[in-house]
């Protein structure tokens, strides 16, 4: 077992190694892989963003939300409406979507001030059910185009970024969306990290661990909860914008816009590791990989699975996904990051700096 002091040269080298590995993957994927593969990574980015935003509210603050699909949809629809009806350039819609979702998030937070636990789960579930019906509602069709949704919401011509060179056609768009997605993921991660490591973040964890005690210690429950819901909704909306720009379409039944979206976000977050910064990132990768792999297995008739499920009328993909999720929860009850931390501790231990030492970070 290796013991490394926090902040020592060896610790920094370890971090540098991690950073190098990630950079290598990030450069390798869009330059070497097929555009459908690149698209799957972008899908993972979208899920990571949504799951990171949910993690702020549920993982760190302990307020359950099954309503994040609505924030996701608000992001997507804000982008679609601004681009189609008002001729905005797609890039700017990220900011607008974040602002709109922030306001809605703050409003949704109001019941969380009074309602807790399983009751809050239902209130947020109501938000998730409400959003698609509102979009489909005929009285709002002038804005949202009702149940047929909005299409061709995408970059007509991919903007030219000096580093990437000129990108053309479908492949070019896939590569561009990958980099755009990566930027949003990094930005979201930095916002989450900044919040969690700050005084505000301590307040969030205090609320999660014991709300009453937090209030007694001087945490302002109202502002803290309202703000964290607002920020979380804004971040989730970024995922929605990205998803809409990638597919070019948004409908009330679209992917992640309905209640099922919220459920997928929760799965991604918990499977990755709730209350950890890297959990949603790992969870997003694993979920997209699982989803695609099970779908491939489900469509192939050969091999052991063909023998097992040959009788089935429909693809066993979702059943296999369900079984794998159960297995993961048995093996890693605190998520994959929790498992990795537990196993990693047997190989390397980072010894924290003694409390009160004045070495600058």
């Amino acid at each position, binding site marked *: 077992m290796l013991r490394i002091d926090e902040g020592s040269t060896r610790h920094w080298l370890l971090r540098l190694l991690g950073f190098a590995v990630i950079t290598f993957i990030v450069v390798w994927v869009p330059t070497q892989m097929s555009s459908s593969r690149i698209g799957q990574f972008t899908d993972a980015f979208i899920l990571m963003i949504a799951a990171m935003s949910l993690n702020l509210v549920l993982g760190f603050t302990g307020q359950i939300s099954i309503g994040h699909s609505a924030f996701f949809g608000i992001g997507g629809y804000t982008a679609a409406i601004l681009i189609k009806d008002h001729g905005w350039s797609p890039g700017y819609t990220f900011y607008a979507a974040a602002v709109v979702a922030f306001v809605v998030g703050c409003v949704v937070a109001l019941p969380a001030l009074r309602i*807790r636990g399983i009751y809050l789960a239902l*209130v947020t579930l109501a938000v998730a*059910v409400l959003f698609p019906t509102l979009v489909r509602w005929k009285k709002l069709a002038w804005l949202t185009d009702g149940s047929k949704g909005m299409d061709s919401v995408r970059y007509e011509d991919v903007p030219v970024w000096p580093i990437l060179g000129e990108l053309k056609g479908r492949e070019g768009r896939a590569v561009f969306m990958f980099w755009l997605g990566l930027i949003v993921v990094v930005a979201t991660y930095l916002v989450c990290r900044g919040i969690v490591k700050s005084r505000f973040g301590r307040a969030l964890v205090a609320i999660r661990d014991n709300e009453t005690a937090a209030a007694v210690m001087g945490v302002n429950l109202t502002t803290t909860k309202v703000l964290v819901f607002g920020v979380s909704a804004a971040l989730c909306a970024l995922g929605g914008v990205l998803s809409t720009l990638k597919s070019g379409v948004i409908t009330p039944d679209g992917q992640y816009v309905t209640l099922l979206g919220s459920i997928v976000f929760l799965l991604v977050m*918990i499977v990755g590791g709730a209350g950890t910064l890297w959990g949603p990132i790992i969870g997003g990768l694993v979920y997209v990989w699982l989803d695609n792999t099970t779908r491939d297995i489900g469509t192939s008739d050969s091999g052991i699975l063909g023998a097992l499920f040959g009788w089935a*009328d*429909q693809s066993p993909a979702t059943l296999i996904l369900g079984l794998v999720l*159960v297995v993961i929860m048995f093996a890693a009850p605190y998520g994959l990051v929790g498992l990795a931390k537990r196993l990693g501790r047997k190989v390397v231990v980072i010894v924290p700096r003694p409390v009160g030492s004045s070495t600058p970070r």
Partner: protein
Amino acid sequence: MERFFQYLFDGLSLGSIYALLALGLVVVFRGTGHLNFAQGEMAMICTFVVWQFNDWGVPLVLSIILGMIVGFALGAGVEATIIRGVAKKSQAGVFVVSIALFLGLNSLAAMIWGSLPPEQLPGLFPDEPDDFQRIFGAVWRYEYIGVLAVALVLMGLLFLLFAKTKFGLAMRAVASNPESARLAGIPTGIVLASSWGIAGAMGALSGTLWGGIVGELNAGLMFTVFIYASAAATLGGFDSPGGAVIAGLTIGVGEQFLAGYFPGWIGQEMKLSAALLTIFVVLLVKPSGLFGSTKVERV
């Protein structure tokens, strides 16, 4: 006035189905403190089982009883094998597992029964076009009367089980303090598995009643009913069986009134949302539901 009674009757019958499924949620929550997301899908699978037995020539009533037994076994089995193991380690894990069950059961039903022509589940009660009774000018179909009657009888039996039997006492003991209950010699494992089993059996019945009304079975049969049921459990208070029943009936009646009296603004499409919004407002005033107990916390 005729419309008023029509909405009332329809609402009571539909509401009794929501109440049955909601009772299942409440029984599970009281016993183990979990929200079983797969409750609706367990009910859906059992409804298919009922159909299958009936299709093989078993009389319908017997098929339903067999379906409820399958429901009990499914619920108890899931609790004993999967849920308990994960719950020991992490509460969030239970949530994932119940979602996984939801996905898995849904997919399983589609795999087994998916490509058959839409199955017609025969109604338990006469449902010819002229099988109805006029009360105050409103049409009350025998089918709807039957659904309400069956649901109410089952709820009555359940309350007797909770209040009058030793098993009911054990369930309440486990719900209020599992460790003391175990020390007092109550086999907590069996009690917990049974509470999931009872929920599964009630789901089977509510699924069959709902399937009889809808007519065609498919894997998405119980999804909306599940949302109504969880709304009912929330409105009534998640630890109050009586509350779940009253709330289920109230939601059933309320949505009929909302959809019937405001066809332009609410209508059939928006009735679920309107009902949920109303509950939302009620929860702001009573955060633990109408009949739920407020949690007092010691710091």
